[in-house]
C-alpha cells in the first residue's frame, strides 16, 4: 500500500502550537476541536496523511494529559469527537485505504514515550497506564524504563 505525500512542515507547526497550561478547560476543548477539524481537512486534502494526523492527535493528547483534570478533558473531548472520527474513517473508505494494514500503520506505530500524569500512572504512546493501590515502594512508571 502506498500512502501519499507527507504533510507539509508548515502545517505541523500550526498544529498544536500552543501552551495548554495557560488555557481554561473550554479553551483546551476548543483547541482540540480545531485540531480535529484540521486533521480531517488534512486527510480530505492529502489522502495519505492519516498517520501524521493521528500522530498529531496523540501528541496533542500528551500535552493535555499531564494532570488528572486534563486527562478528563481529553476523554470527554474524545467522546465528543466520535462523529469526527467517523468522518475520518469515511474519508479513508472513499480513498480505498481501509484494510488490514490500517491497524499496523496507523494505530500501533504512534510515538512511544513515557509521560508521568500523577503518582500512580503514566501515558505510554496510546495507552494510559493507571496503578491502583500499588505496592508502596514500586518505582514510578516514568522510571521503569531504566530498570
Amino acid at each position, binding site marked *: 500500500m502506498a500512502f501519499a505525500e507527507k504533510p507539509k512542515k508548515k502545517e505541523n507547526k500550526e498544529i498544536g502550537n500552543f501552551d495548554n497550561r495557560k488555557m481554561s478547560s473550554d479553551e483546551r476543548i476548543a483547541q482540540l476541536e480545531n485540531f*480535529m477539524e484540521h486533521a480531517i481537512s488534512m486527510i480530505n486534502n492529502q489522502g495519505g496523511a492519516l498517520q501524521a494526523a493521528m500522530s498529531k*492527535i496523540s501528541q496533542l*493528547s500528551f500535552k493535555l494529559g499531564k494532570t488528572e483534570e486534563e486527562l478528563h478533558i*481529553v*476523554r470527554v473531548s*474524545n*467522546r465528543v*469527537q*466520535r462523529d*469526527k*472520527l*467517523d468522518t475520518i*474513517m469515511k474519508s479513508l473508505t472513499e480513498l480505498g485505504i*481501509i*484494510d*488490514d494494514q490500517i*491497524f499496523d500503520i496507523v*494505530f*500501533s506505530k*504512534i510515538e*512511544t514515550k513515557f509521560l508521568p500524569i500523577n503518582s500512580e500512572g503514566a*501515558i*505510554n*504512546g*496510546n*495507552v*494510559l*497506564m*493507571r*496503578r*491502583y*493501590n*500499588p*505496592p508502596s*515502594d*514500586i*518505582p514510578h*512508571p516514568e522510571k*521503569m524504563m531504566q*530498570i
Partner: protein
Amino acid sequence: MRIIKFKEKVMLESKLKPCLPGKEYIISDGYLSQITEVVGQNAIEGIYPFFEVAEKKYNGQDLTDKKILIWRTGGMGDLCFITPNLKYIKDNFKNSKIIFGCGHRFSYGMMNHPHIDELIQLPIDKKYLDEADYYLMFEGIIENNKEAQTKNAYDLFSERFGFNLKEEDKLPILGMSNESLEQAKKLMLNSDNKKIVGLGLKASHIIRSIVPKTLHEIMQLLIQSDIRIALIGSKDDAEVANMLPFANHPLVIPCYKHSEDYRDAIAQISLLDGLIGPDSSPIHIAASFKKPIVGLFGAFPSELRMRYYQNATGMDARLPCSPCFLHGIGTCEYSHPHTKEPMCMHIQQSELVVREIMMLMHYTKPPLASKNLSVLGSP
C-alpha cells in the same frame, strides 16, 4: 422482569431443576426470549408483568433476624461486585439470612461462599420472594445506566444496597472448593519455584478480549523471562489457545483444559503470582486474593472496575473513540475488517504489560504473592 408460568414440567437446561406447572417464576426480559425458544410457546401458560413490591424492596433497612433475596442475571464479574455487600450484611445484621440467585453457569463461582445461606438459580421460584422479608435485584444497573459510565461498579452496587462501604472493603469475596484447589495444586505447582503468571484467554465478547497477537507477544516475553504461564479460561477457550504458537511450551500450563466450572478457575487463580487479563472475570477473581493484576481495557475505563483493587494496574487504550462503553451487543464500528477485533485492543503494548506485571510481582510483599493463601469459605 416478568413472571412466567408453565403448563407442563419443563427443563430449561440439563443441569437445572425442572420448572413445575402452576408455579410462578421470576425471569429477566432477556432470559424470556431464550426460554421461549427452548420450550416453545405451547409450554407457557402465561407471562405477566413483575410488579415491584415497594415495602419489600431493600435499600439499607435493618436486616437483623430478617431474610433477604438477592439476585442478578449478569456474569461472574457482576456477581463479584455484589459480594462485599454480602459481607457487610453478615457483619452488621445478626441472624440475617441471604438467599442468592444467579445464572446456572455462574452459580458454581458462588458455591462455598462464606456469606450466602442458600444459593438458587435463575429463573427464581417466586416462593423465595414471597417468603423473604426483603429483596434486591440489579436489572439495568450497568447495561442501561448512564451513571455506570462515571461511577465504579462497586459503588454502583453498594449504593443500590443503601450501604456506605469503606474503600478497603470494596473487594470481591469468593468461596473456595477444596477439591478444586487440590486439583489445581497438582496441575500447577512443582518444585522449580518459578513465578506463575495467569493469562486470561478471552472475555465474554470480542470487544473486550485481548487480541491473539498480543497474547502471543506477552507469552513470548514471559517465557524469555523464565516465568511460567497459566492459560486461564474454560474448555470453550481452546479455539483461542490453538492460535497461540507457545501454547504447548513446557513453561505453559493449560489451565483452561482442566477448568470444568468457576470453582476450578477460582482455585487456579488463587495459586498465581500475578494475572494479566482483559476486562473479564479472572481479574476480579484475582482481586479477591489481592494478586498483582494488569488489566487491558478499551471499551470501558479500568477505573470503573479496578479502582479499589490492590496491586493492580489498568492499561487503558486512548483513541478518539474510547471509552465507547459498548457492551458487546453488536460490533464496534472501528473494528478490524476481518477479525472484528476493536482498534482499542490492537494498540495494547505487550512489553509494557509484561514489565508492569513483573514490577508488581516483585514489589508486592509476601504473603500476598505467596502460594500459601488461606482458603475462604467452607470446606
